[in-house]
């Protein structure tokens, strides 16, 4: 008997799920602004990683999405810190200081090292040059608690247009991708090996190549050896 998850996967093969006639496009007057839903495999594993933690702290690197704050709050009873890194990138683009991003990310986060239980990195690394991506990844690794986990999404195809994506959690197996205009486009797609090198202090626990042309990866920080 086919269970619900396998049916979800089957629909994922057929392409993006229709959200509804009114919700499929947010604003047709703006190019590249779309909204479609796709299945996700890594999110439920990310949630499972954090279910045991007491009042976990989650760092969300995307722009604030109100329903996500509600979802994670209700699912995990957690504290969520929203740090809009896309906004940081746009600010540096506007000021013509993109080369300063690696230095910026080194001191960007004010949390204590080893204090964060989970990080929603989304696809923000796709928008960074290698040095900036490495600086951000290193800063994130430092913030994670031992056994803490990080969810990252990485594009496997070049995407035209200067748009970022808000990932709106519909439920633990579905994400709604909602694009919005930005000042920077995706850089060259990161290969699997590149991603693993970026997060060399973390262990890859799961990796899913999705029909949405995104690679979903879940990392975990190993506990220190006794």
């Amino acid at each position, binding site marked *: 008997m086919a269970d619900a998850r396998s049916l979800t996967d089957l629909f994922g093969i057929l392409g993006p799920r229709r959200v509804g006639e009114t*919700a499929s496009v947010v604003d047709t007057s703006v190019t590249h602004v779309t909204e479609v839903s796709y299945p996700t495999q890594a999110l439920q594993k990310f949630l499972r990683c954090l279910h045991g933690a007491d*009042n976990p*702290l989650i760092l969300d690197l995307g722009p*604030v*999405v*109100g*329903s996500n*704050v*509600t979802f994670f*709050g*209700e699912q995990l*009873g*957690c*504290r*969520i*810190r*929203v740090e*809009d890194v896309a906004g940081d990138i746009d600010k540096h683009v506007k000021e013509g200081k993109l080369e300063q991003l690696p230095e910026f990310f080194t001191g960007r986060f004010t949390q204590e090292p080893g204090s964060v239980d989970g990080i929603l990195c989304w696809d923000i690394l796709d928008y960074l040059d290698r040095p900036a991506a490495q600086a951000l990844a290193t800063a994130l690794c430092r913030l994670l608690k031992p056994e803490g986990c990080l969810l990252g999404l990485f594009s496997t195809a070049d995407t035209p247009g200067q748009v970022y994506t808000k990932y*709106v959690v519909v439920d633990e197996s579905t994400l709604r991708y909602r694009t919005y205009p930005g000042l920077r486009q995706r850089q060259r797609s990161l290969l699997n090996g590149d991603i693993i090198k970026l997060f060399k202090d973390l262990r890859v626990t799961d990796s899913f190549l999705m029909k949405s042309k995104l690679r979903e990866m879940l990392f975990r920080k190993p506990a220190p050896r006794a």
Partner: protein
Amino acid sequence: MWKRDESVKPATPPAQTPVTTPSAPVAVAPAASEPRTQLGRDNVNIGKSVIIKGELSGSEDLTIEGHVEGRIDLKDNVLTIGPNGKIKAEIFAKAVVVLGEVTGNVTASEKVDIRDNGSVDGDIASPRVAIAEGAHFRGAVDMQRAGAKAQAKPAAPAAPGQSQPQTQKVGA
């Protein structure tokens, strides 16, 4: 016969000048003649020309369109920051609705609702949080689980139908 009675004609309203209160605590009570406008029996409005520095506390719902710096304490009531409201304060209330600007931490025992064009720079602690599309938020959100809330407040258990947080605004 139909001539308007000039004796009841209101005088020309004086030009509004900002009113700055001293930094002593300000209590908002039903009988108080200030703040400016009494909207309804249980809702007081602080107008946009009013500036308050210090501690603001009260026992009725309050709408702020002016500037407040310091601390706002409305533990059993709803605080609404209107579109013109600018707050630099620690806020404690039953529910907080933000349509203006808030800089400071917000603690609500029921709900925080940041509406479109509302802005919060600070940490939020509340069992329910709604952030609309177009709202600005920078900070941390601490949502207690229903069980944790019940442990924290054993004297006021939630009704069975209210134990679960309501569905929040989707599309934010």
